[in-house]
């Protein structure tokens, strides 16, 4: 027997999505548009892309670019954030620069990225790195700053050296906040890759969208690409959220809705 929570968890979102598709289909039908595709045409467009064998290749390229830029941001951002959070002087020195650079959209860096890296894989990689780096470094820094003094005191009391204290107390205590930053950064990376692919490269889901429009105004393929981007973005977020359920970090997410 379905419980109330089953209804809310499955039936409500699925029903709402189905309703949205229905409204979409009706809107296309009754507006007699020749440009905007119906859900069915989008589905056929997806099938066409699959038939041509480019879809897997495009998705793969986009994911690979995200993985590269994101991994770089993680490898540099977490130690940098830990260092900034741990040394107040470092934070004083760098925080203004970080806070100034952070609101600049990675896309604004596009001309410079192309200037520096040319039309290459490195250009979107750089933009993704920029987009992911700031939320990671800021969350790691704030995570360290908000470690309760009591934990540090306890760690010192048991005779931990500073490197041990960082590894065994500061990092695990900051980890929940770092994971939140990592999840936000992943979402941003996925947004940035699509935009970057519209300009700097000739493959990937962003390229699919801009190419479908430029070469024949195939709006069915444009919308198909958009839907794919949304679905993959959702999947990435679900993966990132799974890490927040791990038992060693779950304490940091108490009181948040599941």
């Amino acid at each position, binding site marked *: 027997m379905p419980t109330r929570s089953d209804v809310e968890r499955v039936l409500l979102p699925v029903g709402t999505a189905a309703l949205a598709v229905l409204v979409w289909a009706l809107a296309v039908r009754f507006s007699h548009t020749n440009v905007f595709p119906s859900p069915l045409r989008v589905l056929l467009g997806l099938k066409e892309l699959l038939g041509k064998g480019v879809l897997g290749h495009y998705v793969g390229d986009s994911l690979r670019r995200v993985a590269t830029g994101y991994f770089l941001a993680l490898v540099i951002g977490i130690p940098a954030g830990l260092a900034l959070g741990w040394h107040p002087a470092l934070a004083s020195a760098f925080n203004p620069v970080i806070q100034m650079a952070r609101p600049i959209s990675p896309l604004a860096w596009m001309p410079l990225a192309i200037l520096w890296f040319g039309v290459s894989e490195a250009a979107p990689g750089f933009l993704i790195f920029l987009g992911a780096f700031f939320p990671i470094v800021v969350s790691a820094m704030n995570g360290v700053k908000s470690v309760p003094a009591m*934990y540090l*005191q*306890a760690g010192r*009391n048991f*005779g931990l050296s500073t490197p041990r204290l960082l590894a065994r107390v500061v990092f*695990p205590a900051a980890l929940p906040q770092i994971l939140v930053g990592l999840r936000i950064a992943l979402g941003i990376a996925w947004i940035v890759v699509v935009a970057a692919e519209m300009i700097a490269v000739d493959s990937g889901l962003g390229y699919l969208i801009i190419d479908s429009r430029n070469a024949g105004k195939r709006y069915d393929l444009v919308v198909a690409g958009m839907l794919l981007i949304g679905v993959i973005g959702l999947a990435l977020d679900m993966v990132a959220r799974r890490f927040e359920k791990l038992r060693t970090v*779950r304490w940091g997410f*108490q009181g948040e809705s599941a």
Partner: protein
Amino acid sequence: MTAPAPSKVSVQGVSMRFQTDGSPIEVLTSIDLDVADGEFVCILGPSGCGKSTLLNILGGFLKATSGQVLIDGQPVTGPDPRRIFVFQERGVFPWLTVEGNVAFGLFRLRPTEKAERIAHYVKLVGLSGFENAYPQELSGGMKQRLEVARALAVNPDVLFLDEPFGALDSITRLVMRSELLRIRRAEKKTILFVTHDIDESVQLADRVVVMSTRPATIRRIVDIDMTHPRDLSAPRYNELRDLLLGEIGLAHKI
């Protein structure tokens, strides 16, 4: 110098001033106190009187403005695993299991010895069966036992307890007091225990150090001349309780 019994902890003329916005706040004024090896001393005083500050100085986490603290004749210059500070229940590490918390200070031991220690102290504080539980799955009293186990596991000579049962409900608090006394019989440690609870001090301590309001001085040191287990309805218990109440009450009137 003629010292009849060598003191484990010796507080000598300790004063503490905090600098806030230019105006210094005097928190402790020339505190002198000697604690014998194996003694259980309660530091009793009204909230905000500076008794936690004193304990933090003893633990090596704060440096006194003047005066010094000697432990085993050596001046305290910083925290030391031979003297463990126990906080309220929030001091346990939430990212570690019960076992992980007890093992926290045992990183210098060989694996077999470490496993024995963990098993021993988990059992001693009555957390057997919860080895793999995380602190958020434990009750407040269990978290407090866990913190005591983590402290005892490194075999310190001195325990500093800073209102350790303050966040617990009154029934759990009573249980925890008798648990602490039971553990103390098993593991003879010198204990300095800060509390604002008069009953708690009479139930637990060999001696109660009564502090005044800020700037804190020692008003009086009261010997609790009752053997354990203590009868909470004995006339002597009530006498001592009233005596301490009087001291604290007078402190409030100043």
